[in-house]
């Protein structure tokens, strides 16, 4: 977890160092969410790349292990709820499906056309020992965008799921002092904006620098300072070059 106040203060410090400009809490919150999602979504492509690279077995420099640790922060257990068999709904904070099980037996994902084929063969027909699921969209903005059909239809209990959750939106909450300045407000409070209080970045603590640089890059765009954008982009590129070489 990365403290949202530390990030905001650092960003402000760098931006204001030479009186370059100011980033309001509302602007910061928007950028924070954008950056967090951007970094988070890169993990999966990076993992794919790391898995194809030569491996080492060191304690702290194993890229696969380190990346996996960063992803693990978002791993969560939940429940898929049975609606009308074979329909199931997913947890609302689902980002990527890990594994779904029934009575300790893993469900295998198949496409609709595969299902049509496998259910015709007595050898491959889904059973309670080897169940399968088909993904489909819900087209309902109030629930998770994905749903699934589980086969065989004799399965009608809620199913445990292990998944990657969507990162919560980071929020730097504040209240105003007498001079109109923004005071950081961590806990929920009626006077805070928003009243629910602050929400920290959920990314792994090692991502603090990365978050700050990325926010700075976007902040440079907002305050129209190409030097900030250029410097931040250069530093991010350097970081990535070191990480991926």
């Amino acid at each position, binding site marked *: 977890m990365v403290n949202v106040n530390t990030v905001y203060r650092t960003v402000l410090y760098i931006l204001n160092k030479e009186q370059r400009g100011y980033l309001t809490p509302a602007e910061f919150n928007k950028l924070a969410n954008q950056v967090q999602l951007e970094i988070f979504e890169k993990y999966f492509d990076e993992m794919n790349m790391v898995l194809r690279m030569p491996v080492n077995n060191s304690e702290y420099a194993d890229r696969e292990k380190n990346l996996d640790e960063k992803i693990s922060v978002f791993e969560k257990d939940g429940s898929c709820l049975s609606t009308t068999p074979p329909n199931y709904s997913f947890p609302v904070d689902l980002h990527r499906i890990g594994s779904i099980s029934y009575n*300790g037996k893993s469900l*295998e994902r*198949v496409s609709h056309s*595969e299902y049509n084929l496998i259910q015709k063969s*007595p050898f*491959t027909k889904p059973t309670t020992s*080897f169940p399968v699921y088909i993904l489909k969209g819900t087209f309902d903005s109030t629930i998770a965008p994905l749903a699934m059909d589980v086969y065989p239809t004799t399965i009608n209990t809620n199913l445990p799921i292990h998944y990657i959750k969507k990162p919560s939106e980071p929020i730097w909450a504040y209240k105003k002092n007498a001079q109109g300045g923004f005071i950081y407000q961590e806990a929920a409070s009626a006077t805070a904006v928003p009243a629910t209080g602050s929400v920290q970045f959920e990314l792994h603590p090692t991502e603090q620098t990365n978050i700050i640089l990325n926010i700075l890059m976007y902040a440079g765009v907002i305050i129209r300072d190409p030097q900030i954008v250029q410097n931040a982009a250069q530093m991010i590129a350097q970081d990535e070059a070191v990480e991926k070489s």
Partner: protein
Amino acid sequence: MGLITQTNEEYYAGQKAYTIIQGSSQKVFSTSFDLELELSVDGVSNSNFNLEYSTDGINWSNYIFVNPTVQLEISVDKKTITIPSSAPAIGSTTATTIARITLKDYAKWENYGGYQYISFEDIVNNFLVAYVGEDKLIPKVKRTDVMFHAKRGVQEFNYDTLKSIKSQELTIPPSLSLVIPQDYVNYVELSYIDSSGVKHIIYPTTLTSNPYTVPLQDDEGLPVEDAFAENLEGTSLINKAWRQANQNNIDGQQDWNNVGVWDWNWWKLMYGERYGLDPQYSQSNGWFTIDEREGKFSFSSNLTDRLIILEYISDGLSSDLDTKVPKMAEEAMYMHIAYAMLAGRQNVPEYIVNRFKKDRRAALRNAKIRLSNIKLDEFVQIMRGKSKWIKS
């Protein structure tokens, strides 16, 4: 922790007992049987267990019989029985009660000796864990593909490697035919049983055949059709003749005192006797043929009312209960699946495929030797007759 999970009580006695002290009651009964508890077993009974209770340990009452409307609940893993909230719990305010879950006989028999087998489910899961993944020869695979090859493997192994001989004790009715068993793939041996319980092999014969169709014919020999333009079928006269045949005329078991050898037509008596009886027909155990038209075994007339044993092979997949593999053939199963997976993939070097082909063959040979059950002591006992003089 070892692989055995059920207690001695569960294995040997086929039961799990619970002591419910006086004044308390119990609704949830957990077990650790290897087999799954079932509320309904197709074609066998309503359930494969009984939930009973007693206050003296002698007289037991079946819970289901007390309240027939009660439908017990079984957990998803099929190990725990729960009495529903609408039904009374087991327990007494006046005495300590013993409750027990007892397996019915057929379930108990199925449980006995179960340790020598590994389930099909375990085979598939073990294969996925050990042979599929990053840095392995098979990096990714569809589980349904593994299931397919595993089941095909079970079938193939059942034909000639596994101990899959099934048998039925039957009596031959006056119609001289018996229906082929539901899970029949091929016969191993048919024998009639004498009064001492000793088997006498009944041989298949080519002396007769069972016609697949028996169309009725008109005067010109053409098939006669019904109102739906389909050929009319009659009964087989060949079968009728075979059923009515005097088997002694075939096997040579004649009453030689009244054989009438001086009669001018004496040579018609027995099949091939003129040039000496053909040894393949000189046995009195009887004959059978397979009537594919009716899906039945047909027997010769001397076997009416005989007690027989029909030994046959199945493919091991006739029901879920069947689908288990002897541990002696476990490695052969993994090798079979691995070879089948690699052989069916593109871009797998041929030397890898060949390596697994050899591994499969070697593992299968090992399994066959192990399952042949050749024991040195038994072999020695059979060989004791090697020096016995055979007088001619």
